[in-house]
């Protein structure tokens, strides 16, 4: 059937087909422009994560407005007249932006000890740096020593300060999320689909708006760049910055990579058409896939941003196998161009089809993940490789019909041929190969056991980059980056049953019961004791930067009260007398009396190389109940740190722990394809070893599995499978000719071996460019891809033939 499709349709109407493909490419190209890149923090969260629902709940209950941080390091001293007047005019510029509701800086935060005054005086009017009554020397001391400001609003060298830009609350966004959760719970599919569509449109608009806002902020910063060094940063910025980095990386290194590929193809084939065809087919395949993404509305995220590279690898592999086969068949002088093309595609259809199907099976492992961007990457890659297969098998024959038969033989290096060396090694040192393979497997196990799962956005960037420096200032000098909250809930008291009493006691009881729940009576010694203990414990953790809570407020109050802790009565009075505008600063972000709850807001120092996020979270969860020692108090962690950790752990589970399941699926695919248990086992072994090597290298080199590198497992399986299938099918064909294993191997190495070798060489050379990137995940990705290509090739050219021969796989 395939034959008739080709001879009666594709090869017959080659020009029409090409024209149609051109139109389709233009069409998909148009849809590709609708593809959007979503870099928001939300894309890295698990939709069904209970901690996410909890975090959203908490953000509703406490006063926690969204904000951006601008660091400000003036050339003159921080409190000099010039520095302050610059700060004042920057602040007023920021304030004019429509998205910004308020600007907080050293200029307008309350000063309580400059000079110290009784609390009651302070409650009437709290001075700020702009008041004449304030003593600047004391203010400096207060900024450097107050638990509220030190290492948070100002750095401890007093050269840098933070400007906080509070942003407008996006109620519409949270409404969407709330409604979505409702519809999901009710299982209302129709409404949900409609909502998702509207939500996507809203998100796209919001992204643009947010981005414009950032552009405006940066513009204001640029205006003052002669007076001070400034960075825009904070956890909200990381992903946006990252996408900017990836985009610029793609532009620079993408084009160099393309040039490198062209050069390599030119050296291998020495024919312009065999340079143009692979590049053209790759580009068209990528455009088609991007078009699909635009049509389905799947956003490209940080995780799926490397799909272009992956598709490039797979398309090149298909097309190079076709070209090598064509060249091989071209030696037959009796065939004309049409027959030649027909035989090429027909003989490659089966191995290519199965290679793609198994690759899809490899990527299918991504679909069982909980993380939407990873699931999408799974679909993207499945659609991508399927597209590559179809586009290659339509475009290659159709384009080749435009050319005369090419009889130029493949120019193999006469002095050294990798494939020949490999076949010699298999013949002469076959057992050594097996010994080395076993040793490699053992070493891999040791290396893989050293693997750690850690995602540090800050270490994605080289230390010399501006973006790293900006993050570092906030991380090291201004209290840390990723937020982690500890929510402490006190058990509610049981409602007392009041029985009739005869001595008038009841009347009193009623009187006090009626006032019992008044908020001012909430601050009992028990609770305050827990607050102080927790605050002290969290501050003692070296991984934690700034800790803000009611505990910091208590500390300040203590210092204003002759270094004595306020008692319950004093706290009650303070609570009652505190003006509302200060409640939003010192109470509402940290206490929720209605829920009997406290919030400790920490920020984690992400640049700490010894930070083990998952361990830290577990440590806090273990330690806190012991430290407080009260069974009536419940604890729960929340916010981005927990959510990112959940995401990474779930990614780890779905990627690494299910690798067994993926191998099993592959095994079934091999059984189906080869119909032999022996061959299937050999094929699986050949595929597992490269994956093991990758993990071992990552383990020994201390490259963590993170959002960017974790997909390498399925990628390496995808690539490895390709080589194995092509080689085994060819070997079987060659073996059928004379029943001689060694001769069959040598012939296979000299034919298909070249296709595998060229594919690997082209990709290795092309991807080696990525090592020069400034974006560390890109470097790792380049290096690991090179390693995968190399180990898969060696495994397929040495171990695979040796095992096939040793166990007489086809007998």
């Amino acid at each position: 059937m395939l034959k008739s499709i080709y001879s009666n349709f594709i090869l017959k109407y080659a020009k029409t087909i090409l024209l149609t493909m051109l139109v389709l490419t233009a069409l998909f190209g148009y849809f590709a422009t609708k593809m959007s890149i979503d870099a928001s923090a939300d894309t890295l969260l698990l939709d069904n994560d209970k901690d996410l629902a909890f975090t959203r709940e908490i953000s509703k209950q406490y006063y926690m407005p969204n904000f951006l941080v601008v660091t400000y390091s003036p050339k003159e001293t921080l409190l000099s007249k010039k520095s302050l007047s610059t700060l004042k005019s920057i602040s007023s510029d920021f304030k004019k932006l429509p998205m910004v509701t308020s600007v907080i800086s050293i200029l307008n935060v309350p000063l309580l000890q400059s000079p110290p005054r009784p609390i009651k005086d302070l409650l009437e009017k709290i001075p700020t740096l702009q008041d004449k009554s304030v003593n600047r020397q004391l203010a400096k001391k207060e900024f450097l020593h107050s638990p509220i400001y030190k290492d948070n609003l100002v750095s401890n060298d007093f050269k840098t300060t933070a400007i906080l830009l509070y942003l407008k609350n996006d109620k519409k966004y949270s409404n969407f999320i709330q409604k979505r959760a409702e519809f999901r719970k009710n299982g209302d599919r129709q409404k949900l689909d409609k909502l998702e569509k509207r939500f996507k449109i809203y998100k796209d608009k919001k992204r643009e708006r947010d981005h414009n806002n950032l552009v405006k902020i940066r513009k204001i910063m640029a205006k003052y760049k002669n007076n001070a060094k400034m960075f825009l940063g904070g956890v909200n910025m990381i992903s946006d910055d990252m996408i900017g980095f990836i985009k610029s990386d793609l532009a620079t290194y993408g084009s160099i990579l393309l040039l490198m590929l062209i050069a390599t193809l030119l050296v291998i084939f020495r024919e312009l058409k065999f340079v143009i065809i692979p590049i053209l087919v790759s580009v068209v395949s990528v455009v088609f896939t991007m078009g699909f993404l635009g049509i389905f509305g799947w956003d490209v995220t940080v995780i799926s941003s490397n799909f272009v590279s992956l598709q490039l690898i797979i398309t090149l592999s298909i097309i190079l196998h076709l070209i090598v086969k064509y060249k091989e068949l071209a030696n037959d002088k009796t065939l004309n161009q049409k027959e030649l093309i027909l035989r090429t595609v027909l003989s490659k259809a089966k191995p290519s089809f199965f290679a793609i199907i198994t690759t899809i099976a490899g990527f299918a492992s991504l679909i069982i993940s909980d993380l939407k961007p990873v699931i999408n990457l799974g679909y993207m890659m499945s659609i991508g490789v399927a597209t590559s297969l179809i586009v290659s098998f339509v475009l290659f024959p159709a384009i080749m019909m435009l050319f005369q038969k090419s009889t130029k033989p493949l120019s193999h290096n006469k002095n050294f041929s990798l494939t020949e060396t490999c076949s010699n090694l298999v013949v002469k040192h076959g057992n050594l190969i097996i010994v080395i393979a076993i040793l490699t497997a053992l070493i891999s196990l040791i290396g893989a056991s050293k693997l750690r799962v850690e995602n540090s956005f800050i270490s994605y960037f080289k230390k010399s980059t501006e973006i790293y420096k900006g993050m570092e200032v906030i991380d090291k000098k201004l209290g840390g980056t990723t937020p982690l909250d500890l929510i402490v809930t006190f058990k509610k008291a049981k409602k007392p049953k009041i029985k009739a009493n005869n001595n008038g006691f009841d009347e009193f009881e009623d009187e006090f019961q009626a006032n019992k729940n008044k908020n001012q009576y909430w601050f009992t010694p028990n609770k305050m004791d827990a607050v102080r203990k927790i605050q002290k414990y969290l501050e003692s953790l070296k991984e934690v930067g700034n800790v803000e809570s009611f505990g910091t407020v208590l500390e300040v109050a203590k210092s204003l009260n002759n270094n004595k802790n306020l008692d319950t009565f004093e706290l009650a009075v303070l609570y009652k007398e505190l003006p509302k505008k200060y409640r939003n600063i010192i109470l509402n972000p940290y206490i929720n009396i209605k829920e009997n709850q406290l919030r400790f807001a920490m920020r984690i120092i992400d640049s700490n190389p010894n930070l083990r996020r998952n361990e830290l979270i577990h440590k806090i969860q273990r330690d806190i109940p012991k430290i407080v020692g009260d069974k009536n108090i419940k604890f729960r962690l929340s916010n981005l740190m927990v959510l990112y950790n959940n995401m990474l752990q779930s990614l780890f589970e779905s990627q690494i722990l299910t690798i067994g399941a993926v191998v099993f699926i592959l095994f079934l695919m091999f059984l189906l394809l080869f119909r032999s248990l022996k061959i299937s086992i050999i094929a699986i072994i050949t595929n597992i070893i490269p994956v093991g090597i990758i993990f071992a290298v990552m383990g020994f080199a201390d490259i963590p599995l993170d959002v960017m590198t974790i997909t390498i497992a399925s990628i390496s399986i995808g690539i490895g499978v390709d080589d194995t299938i092509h080689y085994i099918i060819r070997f079987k064909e060659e073996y059928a000719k004379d029943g001689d294993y060694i001769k069959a191997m040598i012939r296979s190495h000299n034919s298909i071996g070249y296709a595998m070798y060229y594919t690997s060489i082209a990709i290795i050379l092309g991807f080696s460019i990525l090592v020069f990137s400034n974006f560390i995940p890109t470097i790792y990705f380049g290096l690991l891809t090179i390693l995968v290509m190399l180990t898969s090739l060696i495994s397929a050219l040495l171990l695979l033939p040796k095992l096939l021969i040793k166990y007489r796989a086809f007998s």
Partner: protein
Amino acid sequence: MKYLIVALLISINVFALSENKIESFMNTNINKVVQILKSGKENNVSKEKLSKEIFKIFDPVFDYKLMARLSLGSRVWRTLSQRQQKRFTTLFTNRLKKSYKNKLNMYNGQKITVKGIKKVRSNRIHLLSELKGKKEKYDIVYKFYESNDKQWYIYDVSVLGVSIIQTYRSQFSDELKKMSFDKLLKKLNKQS
């Protein structure tokens, strides 16, 4: 904190109090206490001595036993043995006095004026007063009840709307979630 001083400043005749005498009594005796504090400050009298003098004046009009009972709440109080009730009352009174004593040195020449009485119920009277310093001004309310012998006693004082007894109630109810009553007694004993 300065403004918390003199929350319990009252001076009362050793004799029991009838309704129509509450205001005048309080007026006279509050002034007496202010005088004690003033001369105490000038002559550097110790806190111990000052408090002893003041307590002597207002002990008779404070119903410490009732205050102790109220600060625990009837639900808990009824479960206690007589011995426990007695012990608690003593410890609670000590604590109340101690925390008052600790605040005496904050006195800084403030004046206290009685502003009048308010009968909130047939058997409840609030005596409204004001503590005035150079800048600050606080409302202090002394809450009286009428006992079975038709005399009036103080059962609670509130400063700026914060009731002292209510504060203790929330404090003790919180403590008792965590510890047994005997442990609470031990803790109070240690504190005093």
